[in-house]
């Protein structure tokens, strides 16, 4: 029996998987049968769902009837939900984009909602706004630069 923590949409779920392919979540037991090539059939004994799963590291992309979920899976049972412990110190690009304008300056005091910089991707302008009041720290990008998701653009102190 393997115990796993699944994280999605800010909540955590603990799942146990036994060697026969049964998965226990909360009070429910579900039978998972791989049917090859990334497809699985999940059954609760009365109903069944075809599910497609692709994993990239600990991230599972799941497709079920047109709905898509991105689930972080971690071995073991976590005590503290991670999302609460993360503090947004650095603002990231949500996607690969080009920096159009940098509006914030280091040391500047900003309130929630202030636009700090503007990105452009696929013909769209994307303002990057302060998620809370604070003081702008380092600016880690320049106008014209192509930036990748997950890379800090501006620090907010």
């Amino acid at each position, binding site marked *: 029996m*393997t115990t*796993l923590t*699944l994280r*999605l*949409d800010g909540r955590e*779920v603990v*799942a146990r*998987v036994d*060697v*026969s*392919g049964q*998965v226990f*979540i909360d009070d429910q037991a*579900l*039978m*998972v*049968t*791989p*049917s*090859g090539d*990334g497809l*699985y059939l*999940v*059954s*609760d*004994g*009365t109903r*069944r*769902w075809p*599910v*497609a*799963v*692709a*994993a*990239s590291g600990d991230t*599972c*992309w*799941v*497709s*079920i*009837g*047109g*709905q*898509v*979920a*991105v*689930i972080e*899976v971690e*071995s073991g049972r976590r005590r503290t939900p991670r999302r609460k412990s993360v503090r947004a110190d650095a603002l990231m690009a*949500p*996607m*690969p*984009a080009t920096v159009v304008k940098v509006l914030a300056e280091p040391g500047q005091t900003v309130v929630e909602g202030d636009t700090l910089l503007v990105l452009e*991707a*696929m*013909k*769209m302008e*994307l303002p990057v706004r302060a998620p809370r009041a604070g003081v702008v720290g380092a600016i880690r990008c320049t106008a014209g630069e*192509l930036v990748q*998701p997950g890379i800090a653009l501006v620090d907010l102190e």
Partner: protein
Amino acid sequence: MIKRLLIANRGEIAVRIIRACRELGVETVAVFSDADAHAPHVLAADAAVGLGPPPPRKSYLKVDNLIDAARDSGADAVHPGYGFLSERAHFARACEEAGLIFVGPPSSAIERMGSKVGARRLMQEAGVPVVPGEAPEDQGDRALIAAAEHVGFPLLVKPSAGGGGIGMKVVRDLAALAPAIAQARREAQAAFGDGTLYIERLVKRPRHVEVQIFADAHGAAVHLFERECSVQRRHQKIIEESPSPALTPALRARMGEAAVSAARAAGYRNAGTVEFLLESAGDQARFYFLEMNTRLQVEHPVTEMVTGVDLVHAQIRVASGEALPWTQSSLAQRGHAIECRVYAEDPAHGDLPQAGRLLMYREPQGPGIRIDSGVVEGSEVSVHYDPLLAKLIVSAETREAARRRAVEALGRFILLGVRTNIPFLLQLLQHPRFVEGAIDTGFLDREGASARQALSADVPMAALAAAAYRVAPDRPAGRGSANPAADPFMTLAGWRG
């Protein structure tokens, strides 16, 4: 017939044109940016020429590189697809001057229809209805107010120059007019260096209905009926269909005739689309010329599905000098077709375009389902280009059967690794207003938010279970139990429970 065609585009439309060429025995030359070196359109062609770095202005928009590529590869014709250079008259002209057949209208027609003011005047002369409006010579407040009273309220005050809604004001009564004129003039002057204003009737809850036309070099011109494209946001269409639920046979005939008149007035050749705003529905509905798209449309497949023709085959034949393969009376609509555009974007977060690798990509198959796509499993979705990944086009005997088919097919379209709008498309297809066909161009603005909220519904337990199973290190290998017939979950012991 064209011998070797260079396709000056990428993605699904390049693949679709290349396949049509293979069926016609025309050789194909693909072009590609460094980001697309292994893209499906490059693989599908007989030959491929590199254009340059990923940004379009350094590759797909470089006219000189494209003309050189055509020359060097021995191509005798160029197909521009849609987007990129497809509606740039100077590209068509560069092809003409290089002695290459441009698969599209003459550059003069592109130019003529590219000017909003010029196109409007041309249409009025040709008897094609335009939205009632006036652009007084005298731009003083008094003359503008007189024009407004003449046009009637509610109305739009619009800058003559520019576009994209900048400086445009909705005015509902006389009291609001003077301030609106002043503000619009200021904004127009600032944005376009030209404060000239234009007063236009406000069309209430308009539908966007367009008519496919086709003309050859021998004087023949036909229309291929309409496409309803009212499900759009920021002028980006999402779901298109044919027939339009709003058209009666009489109205369809009037719009078709107007579109053919428009094509003739433009000196048009090859495939084109005349866009109309439609006000109300039924025989008494009014329609107004909006603009002409001088190229193949993204949504051309819905016309192909209901008329049974292949527009790209016809484009290549007509560009080769052949006569139109149809007459107006040989064309008919049959059944109903719906196209859903599958975009790499996150509908739950402001439709942010997404990029990344397609970890899993499986297209649905079956009767009445067509997918036009430019990606395969493993493709990298790049930030540099349009986020359109694929088009799902369905056809069936009735609108309702087509709608249900689209829902079923989208539910089986597996696309993992980047977020897409598939969950949002499913919400829209099942929205009561869409089910009724009671849509106008404001539909998404009014109803989009509630459709988006429904997206955050709980993830089914089965999804969590499958993810846990997939990642569990000691999950059973192979394909389930050795004796599947004995598996109680498969034999439905508890079915009725």
